[in-house]
């Protein structure tokens, strides 16, 4: 019988031994499959994709410019975020209620708003909370930003409504200016300088009125048009038309101009008045809410499926679970051989480190693969988690995660002296994976040098690759998959070297 065949037999002894030992613990296998499935199942049932609704108490201090009913109105507009818990004028009482947990948030309205703005400063809404969770604190900061945006929009809306009311008066002034231009044109044509001067005086009065009023009324429209022109629009800004109108009207008073020059100026003036009038009509036709908030966003996903939070977490859970199972099993494997005393037997026998490791790798790969297959089937066919990609690619990634995780486990096992030491090291790997693999927060939130840790963990690769395959339906990123296998190979070589040393010096 050849040496190669004997090597296979020796490796197979470990394969059989590990499988038998695992099968002797049916509860362990059941727990490993059903445990994560039930957790995900209950999570899927129990998770509600809703923003937290905060019980909010408003504080209106003396000199506040905002009336209590307005505050209630703002609160109702944002009822998905706030539960209106009332208005009070006593900040201390409000803080007391916050500390007793009766409300979640206090919003203190700004005082002396007008004088603050006149001093070229922003008036401040103050938000008090009692949170210690950084995520909740960020959420409240975001709410504050949303709330103040809503208030600012309400202010602008009132401004736009007032502008549209003023536009009615402006129409009359522009009509009058138009008539005065016609009268002046007749006077210039007939050579009646006195009548022309009289009409010019009236026109100048109309232009002053329009300049003052249209400046505020059409300002919003003008800024909207300027925004549009940066996007390819081709409209004269209102302020430019007004400036042109004022300049022409002023130059019409100049008696040194020839008759034709004056008539030409009157035509240009008439044209500007018509332009302004049409813009005013346009301004009046637009809803005030559109004027103050002309843009909205719309999100369209190019992904083939819109996963739920559960769907999104499933690949990460699968990768983390398989990594933990493989690391723990491998970590306990060799340290137990050492504690039982079999290493002494191995030292004397013809067994090589490669044969022992090969047998263990194959048995744990098979065991992890079976767990992954059953769990994936339960998740896809019972929880209906999407699986858009190729199952072979999925299996390849699972194999890579198991292979590399076992390398970590064997390295831990060889350097550990006791079972508890091996378990502790495995727990540290698990903890690192929870924080650094993108399991609970995106990798983009980590400082670049810290990401080195992330990319040393099989869960990081597993999460990214399994999500790509299952939820995007694409092929795995071969560079990432190759890197994962390369890390696994390096760990296997390290484990082999350590194991060789261990078998040679078993005691």
């Amino acid at each position, binding site marked *: *019988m050849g*040496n190669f*065949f*004997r*090597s296979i*037999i*020796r490796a*197979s*002894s470990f394969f*059989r*031994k590990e499988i*038998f*030992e695992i099968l*002797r*613990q049916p509860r362990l296998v059941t727990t490993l499959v059903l445990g994560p499935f039930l957790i995900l199942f209950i999570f899927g049932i129990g998770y509600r994709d809703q923003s937290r609704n905060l019980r909010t108490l408003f504080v209106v201090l003396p000199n506040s410019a905002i009336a209590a009913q307005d505050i209630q109105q703002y609160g109702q507009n944002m009822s998905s975020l706030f539960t209106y818990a009332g208005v009070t004028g006593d900040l201390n009482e409000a803080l007391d209620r916050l500390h007793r947990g009766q409300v979640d948030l206090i919003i203190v309205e700004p005082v002396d708003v007008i004088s603050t703005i006149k001093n070229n400063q922003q008036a401040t809404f103050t938000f008090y909370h009692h949170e210690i969770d950084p995520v909740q604190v960020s959420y409240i900061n975001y709410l504050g930003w949303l709330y103040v945006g809503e208030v600012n929009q309400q202010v602008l809306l009132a401004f736009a409504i007032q502008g549209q009311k003023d536009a009615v008066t402006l129409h009359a002034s522009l009509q009058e200016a138009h008539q005065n231009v016609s009268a002046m044109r007749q006077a210039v044509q007939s050579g009646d300088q006195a009548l022309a001067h009289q009409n010019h005086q009236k026109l100048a009065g109309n232009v002053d009125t329009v300049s003052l009023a249209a400046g505020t009324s059409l300002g919003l429209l003008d800024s909207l048009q300027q925004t549009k022109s940066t996007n390819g629009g081709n409209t004269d800004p209102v302020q430019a038309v007004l400036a042109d109108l004022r300049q022409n009207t002023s130059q019409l008073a100049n008696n040194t101009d020839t008759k034709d020059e004056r008539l030409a100026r009157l035509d240009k003036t008439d044209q500007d008045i018509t332009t302004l009038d049409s813009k005013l009509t346009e301004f009046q036709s637009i809803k005030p809410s559109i004027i103050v908030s002309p843009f909205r966003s719309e999100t369209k996903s190019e992904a083939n499926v819109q996963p739920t939070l559960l769907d999104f977490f499933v690949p990460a859970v699968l990768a983390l679970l398989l990594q933990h199972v493989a690391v723990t099993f491998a970590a306990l494997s060799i340290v137990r051989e050492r504690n*039982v*005393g*079999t290493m*002494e*037997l*191995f*030292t*004397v*026998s*013809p*067994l*090589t480190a490669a044969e022992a490791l090969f047998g263990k790798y194959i048995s744990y790969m098979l065991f992890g693969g079976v767990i992954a297959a059953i769990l994936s089937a339960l998740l896809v066919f019972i929880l209906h988690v999407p699986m858009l990609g190729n199952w072979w690619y999925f299996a390849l990634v699972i194999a890579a995660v198991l292979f590399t995780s076992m390398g970590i486990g064997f390295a831990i096992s060889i350097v550990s002296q006791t079972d508890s030491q091996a378990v502790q090291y495995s727990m540290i790997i698990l903890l690192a994976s929870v924080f650094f693999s993108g399991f609970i927060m995106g990798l983009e939130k980590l400082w670049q040098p810290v990401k080195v840790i992330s990319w040393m963990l099989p869960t990081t690769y597993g999460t990214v690759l399994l999500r790509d395959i299952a939820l995007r339906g694409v092929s795995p990123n071969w560079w990432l998959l190759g890197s994962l296998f390369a890390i696994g190979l390096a760990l296997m070589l390290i484990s082999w070297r350590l194991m060789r040393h261990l078998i*040679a*010096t*078993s*005691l």
Partner: protein
Amino acid sequence: MKGNDKLTAVEQEISAPVSSSEMDQVKSSVISARHLTKKFGDEVAVQDISFDVPRASIFGFIGPSGSGKTTTVRLLTGVYKPTDGEVMVMDRNPAKFSHNERALLGYMPQLFVLYPNLTVWENLNFAASLYGMGLFRGKRLKNALRFVELYEHRVKLARNISGGMLRRLSLAATLVHDPQLLFLDEPTAGIDPVLRHKFWDHFRELKNQGRTIFITTQYVSEADNCDLVGVQNNGKLLLVDTPKGIRHHAYGGDIVDFHTTEPFNFQAEALLRSLPFVLSKTFRTGDNSMRIIVDQASTATPELMGWAHQQNINVKTVEEYMPPFEDVFVELVRPQVSHG
């Protein structure tokens, strides 16, 4: 003091330079240890021991618990590297054995080192696979289990069988691949006397087939089953000899029991002590009996008969006495203990 001098001489003999006749013996030896020392920190576990184990023999290593027997076995199997001295097993340093050479060894450690969650059969199958035994090994496994009387218990988990059964399983795992050289560290510990007897029969059968067995035991009485016996105490090898030779060393000669029909008188006892072939002490074991230590029992017996005839003493029996090995062992280690 006489006994101390005798032991020192034995030690000198063992650690003396190897002569040319000894070199021939070394060449035919399967195991050859020279000035072997193993220290763990400041503690000396094995101190300067030298011995040879001839091919196709049973070499018994006896000594009390903690005398360094297991350390010696581990040095011989390459589990430990010696602090000093050298060991050759099958003409090779055991630490540098090839895989094929290791396949010729069978090693039974002192403690059970297989897997409690596997059955008796699975454990034995694992051990057989470790030595690369082929796929059709079922018959050998069955025979090994039958030999240690565990075949009926083959489906039991190792954790559910008794300590004695675990020893038997370990022995079966050591023998299953039919090794040429066996290292058995206390294989009979915890085994009932009937099965122990069966084991020793099997060991002798293996020896007759040309296998070499290095065996340690705390049952010093088992030394009688060995071809050569090494007596170890406090890490030192006191002597290596045949069981008969060991007895001879222990008492300074052979022991002869001399029974008469009438009681001995003091004059006859004094005359008996003065005989040239009577060594050291004589002991009265009864009114009509004396225990005498002689140089060689075979030559001393007819001379004793002649002397008794001359002295008109009616002899009932003259026979060589073989003291139990427990007594021999105590006799051997006593000077060491009093030294300590």
